[in-house]
C-alpha cells in the first residue's frame, strides 16, 4: 500500500491510553512518547499503548501511561484473550527529543525507550521493530490483521514500516 487509505475503523490511542483488539490503532504526533505494539503471531490480534513516562512508581490508575505498567497490562490482557506470551512480538516507535537547551529537561524520550525495552526484556518478548530517537514527531498506525504492520509517518513526510 503506497497510498494510505485511512481505515474508518481505526481507533485513536491518546496519551496514556492502551487497547487490545483486531482493528487498526493509531497514535498521532508522538514526540517523547512511545507507541508500543505487542502483536500476537497467531490470531491477527494485538495491543497498542501510548506510553508517556518511563516509571509508574507503583501507580496503577493509568497502566498505558508508563513503560513498565503498559507492557504488563498488554501482556495480561492479550493472555486473557488467548494469546501466548511466546507468540508475542513487540514494535516500538517514538521517543524523540524535539527541543534542546531548556532547563525543564525535555529529553524524556530516550528514557522512555530504554524503559520500554527493559520491560520487554524482563518479559522475554522479542523486539522485532524499533524506530526511536531523533528530533522529529511521528504518527503511527498498527494493523493487527495485516500481520502486525506498524506504519510510521515522520514530520518530514517520510513513511516507514516496521
Amino acid at each position, binding site marked *: 500500500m503506497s497510498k494510505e487509505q485511512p481505515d474508518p475503523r481505526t481507533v*485513536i490511542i*491518546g*496519551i*496514556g*491510553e492502551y487497547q487490545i483488539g483486531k482493528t487498526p490503532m493509531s497514535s*498521532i*504526533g*508522538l*514526540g*517523547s*512518547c512511545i507507541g508500543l505494539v505487542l502483536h500476537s503471531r497467531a490470531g491477527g490480534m494485538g495491543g497498542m499503548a*501510548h506510553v*508517556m*513516562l518511563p516509571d509508574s512508581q507503583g*501507580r496503577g490508575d*493509568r497502566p498505558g501511561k508508563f513503560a513498565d505498567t503498559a507492557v504488563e497490562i498488554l501482556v495480561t490482557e492479550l493472555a486473557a484473550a488467548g494469546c501466548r506470551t511466546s507468540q508475542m512480538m513487540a514494535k516500538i516507535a517514538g521517543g*524523540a*527529543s*524535539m*527541543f*534542546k*537547551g*531548556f*532547563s*525543564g*529537561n*525535555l529529553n*524524556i*524520550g530516550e528514557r*522512555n525507550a530504554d524503559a520500554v525495552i527493559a520491560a520487554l526484556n524482563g518479559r522475554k518478548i522479542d523486539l522485532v521493530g524499533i524506530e526511536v530517537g531523533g*528530533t*522529529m*514527531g*511521528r*504518527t503511527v498506525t498498527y494493523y493487527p490483521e495485516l500481520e502486525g504492520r506498524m506504519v510510521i509517518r515522520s*514530520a518530514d*513526510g517520510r513513511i516507514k514500516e516496521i
Partner: protein
Amino acid sequence: MLLNSQQCDALRELGNIGAAHAATTLSTMLMTNIEMDVPDIKVIDISQVHQYVSDELAALVLFEINGEVSGGGYVLLHIPKNSVIRLTNAMLGMTEEERELTEMDESALLEIGNIMVSAFLDATAGLLNIIMLPSPPSLTIDMPHAAVQSILASEGFMDINEVVLFRTELRSDQHKIINNLFLLPNEPMLDEIVSMLENLLITASEPQDIT
C-alpha cells in the same frame, strides 16, 4: 478539576490582554489588521489532547517562562505550514509562495516569536504586577501534538492527568495568515497565577473609601 469556571474566566481575561498586545506587535510588523478571538480555555484529559492539537506540520516556536513566578511553564507560537511562507513573505517583502524555507525564514520566525511572546508575557505580568520573561526561543518545523506532548511529559509538569489548554488565535485576513499562541503553565505556576488573579478581583471589589 484544575480550575472552576470563575477561575477560567479570570484566566481568559488575563490571556485576552496578553494576546491583544501580541496582536498589536504582529499588526505593526505586518502593517495590517490582525483579528483575534477570545482565548479558548479548556481543562482536558491528557488522552484527549489529540482532539485539540493535530499532527499537521507547522512552525513551532517555543519559549520557557522565566521571572518572578513560581513553577514553570511554556509559551508556544504555532503557525500552520500554509501560513508560514505567507507570514515570512509579508515580513520580508517577498511574494513567491512556492519556495523552500530558508535560514532567512527561520530567523524571521524566531524574531516574530520573540517580539510577540515578549509582548504577551509583558502585558500579562504587568497586570499581575510581576515580571515574566521569555527564554531564548527554540524553533522546529514539526507536528504540534508531538511538541505539546513532549512539553507535558517534561520534568516541570511532573505526572499529570489533566492539562489546561489555553489557546488564542490571531489572524490576518489580508495575508491569509493564521497563528495560535498556547500558554502551558505547570500546576504550581497555574496555581500562583490564579491566586494572584483572585487577589486582584477581591481588591477591585472592595468598597472604596471616599472620605
